[in-house]
């Protein structure tokens, strides 16, 4: 298969960037999107041009490192997959594909398609944990947890922290990311002790980082590679309301 590519090139955070046109030819349909970029980069190196920088690591859809906005959608046209699990068979022959970094003020571009997502780490540091220091735990079976709660917690805990939800949102809201953690820990007895501080601190940090508000467009759920449901945002809102009232 052959493709035309429009890729965002930006030397560093201080230099303005722009789209540059490239073509790639003879790509097998079983090539992953990132492997297609590898092939482009090999071509560029052969021509003494600097390869395109993009974040990636596990290439099996779980580390959350890859973060490409592909033809207007985070992680590209297929639902519930990351860019590394997207294959070229999902595109039309000869298609023009645009590739750019996440676009959100709290995620500044570092180079080409790489952004800085440390805001997510700072939100986690503000309350995304159970304060259980090593050594203090009772037996794992001491507190039975209803299967339904454990399953709900796991649904939320599946978040890979990639930031597609923010990139998809017209307000650059991080509500789905924060809600996933609040809901994961809030559904478990271990997490209930600190639920109030957790939700207040995480939401405060989210606001401080400059993420926008949620206006219920559900774009985050539609683009989440792990299919995290917006129902967790409803849970977050309930937790937040309860915490502010008590």
């Amino acid at each position: 298969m052959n493709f035309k590519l429009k890729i965002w090139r930006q030397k560093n955070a201080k230099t303005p960037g722009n789209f540059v046109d490239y073509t790639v030819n003879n790509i097998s349909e079983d090539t992953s999107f990132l492997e297609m970029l590898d092939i482009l980069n090999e071509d560029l190196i052969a021509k003494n041009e600097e390869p395109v920088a993009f974040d990636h690591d596990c290439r099996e859809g779980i580390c959350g490192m890859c973060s490409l906005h592909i033809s207007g959608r985070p992680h590209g046209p297929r639902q519930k997959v990351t860019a590394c699990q997207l294959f070229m068979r999902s595109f039309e022959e000869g298609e023009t594909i645009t590739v750019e970094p996440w676009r959100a003020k709290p995620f500044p571009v570092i180079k080409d398609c790489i952004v800085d997502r440390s805001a997510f780490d700072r939100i986690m540091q503000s309350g995304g944990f159970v304060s259980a220091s090593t050594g203090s735990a009772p037996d794992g079976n001491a507190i039975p947890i209803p299967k339904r709660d454990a399953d709900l917690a796991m649904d939320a805990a599946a978040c890979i922290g990639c930031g597609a939800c923010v990139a998809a949102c017209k307000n650059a809201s991080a509500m789905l990311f924060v809600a996933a953690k609040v809901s994961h820990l809030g559904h478990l007895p271990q997490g209930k002790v600190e639920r109030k501080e957790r939700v207040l601190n995480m939401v405060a940090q989210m606001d401080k980082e400059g993420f926008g508000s949620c206006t219920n467009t559900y774009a985050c759920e539609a683009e989440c590679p792990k299919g995290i449901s917006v129902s967790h945002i409803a849970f977050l809102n309930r937790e937040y309301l309860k915490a502010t009232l008590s």
Partner: protein
Amino acid sequence: MALDSKIPSGPIEKKWYDHKFNLKLVNPANRRKYKIIVVGTGLAGGAAAATLGEMGYEVSAFAYQDSARRAHSIAAQGGINAAKNYRNDGDSIYRLFYDTVKGGDYRAREANVYRLAELSVDIIDQCVAQGVPFAREYGGYLDNRSFGGAQVSRTFYARGQTGQQLLLGAYSALSRQVGLGTVKMYERHEILDVVVVDGKARGIIARDMVTGELERHAADAVVLATGGYGNVYYLSTNAKGCNTTAIWRAHKRGAYFGNPCFVQIHPTCIPVSGEHQSKLTLMSESLRNDGRVWVPLKKGDDRKPNDIPEAERDYYLERRYPSFGNLVPRDVASRAAKQVCDEGRGVGASKMAVYLDFADAIKRQGKAKIEEKYGNLFDMYYEITDENPYEVPMRIYPAVHYTMGGLWVDYNLQTTIPGLFAAGEANFSDHGANRLGASALMQGLADGYFILPYTLGGYLGGTQLPKVTTDAPEFAEAEKNVKSVIDRLLAVKGTKSVDHYHKKLGKIMWDKVGMGRSEAGLKEAISEIRELRDDFWKNVRVLGESEELNQSLEKAGRVADFLELAELMAVDALQRRESCGGHFREESQTEDNEAKRDDENFSYVAAWEFQGVGAEPQLHKEELTFEYCKPSQRSYK
């Protein structure tokens, strides 16, 4: 230097207990005066950094990714072993210990493995307390599944994302400490050298991968928890960034390298589909709980799998190993897959694959049950191959997955450089010549949560550590060394990309230092690796500059190190003229093609001392003694 494994005396079940008492302590008020560097934030590094921070030490943690949460422990799927005996099926610490020593083909230290089994139960408790959402039964209690090499159900899991959930647990604990200010986190930093002052590890040289700036960090002790070196094969189930650089450069500074040739080739991965392929994807071993492995009885049978009648299928694992069936250990399953493919009975376009079939399980348990257990794995398989595993059998083939070898460490997880510790996959310690499934997570967390916090304290409390600053000449020398490697890479300005060399190296390693190894092949591999390394330094093309984010430069440094490590792996494989675990020397096999160990001559850990690039490394042997698990020909029949 003579190797001292520092294994405590006394009966095995009391060794760790006594050792903890005998280790020196650091008073809680004094801990903040000690600075510890932890490199890598996976299960071992993340758990260690968090726990040491909780204890009050001043910790700096480093990750090459943009967040500590992305370390490759995250990709582990199936589960974590623990001797809880919640199933009432006869499990015990002793049985987990025995299974692990046997599974490792009697090439691991008994004392270390016993401690690992002992700590396994605490790990589950700790993770539950952190909010790790392990699978539960309807009564609310923890669920288990079975893994290879065991006849009990002792594997705890969180759907097919156990590694992710355990890592996020450690990352949460680490985040809490970062928020509290006990741990300082350095993301997008790569460690390029270890600084040794007066014979002790006292710091590191790191490169800020965004600005390219070289940084000096001084400390009282350094922990390397940087994972394995499976990417020396280019194609592996490791993340693209996984590398040997930190441990290799520590090796060049004097840390011995243990059993470099012990590599785990995992039997159930999605087969290679073409030249463009950049990595291989694992399909969890847990699938062998319900999937049946088979190939056609006849060579070159081109019918679709569902058109091949039952009588013309060979369920070769069930046939050869009736008592363990599809759940034989990984090394055995991988070799058996290679054998049937070499016989010409492989399937798929490449003929280098076997079937993993769920039709029976779906018939027996229903599609919904299978979906609940393995849904995310089936989806992943579907995305990659465009084939629906609920309808047609999966095609799988072995791939490089884990390295049992790593930096040699003593019972305290200390390398041969005092003050330099290695944890998790980066050390060689607990898995012998073959790791059992669901044991990597167990080892990483045991090292990080429960071993290093004691042994590091013992080192700090019992050692005179005069103040060292980054102005010391050793830091200047190490920084100069790092800079000269970077400058040299950029100065070659050759014609071939880094990936070109990495792929070539991978092919040599897979063909000659892979699933089957022979004296002639290994000798060829050594000379080919040397030629390739020379060519790399003459003709590699690394564009861009060092003072910026430069992914080609990062890769080039890592591949340069792989090109040196690869030779050591081949040298180690050549000297070990026996087969054991994942190391299969074609000259040493039984009549029915099983690995044949030679305990008389090779019951030792090979610890290699660096003597210079291209120079013959010096071999030190740590003899292994087995007081409890008497070595026998491993049988899973």
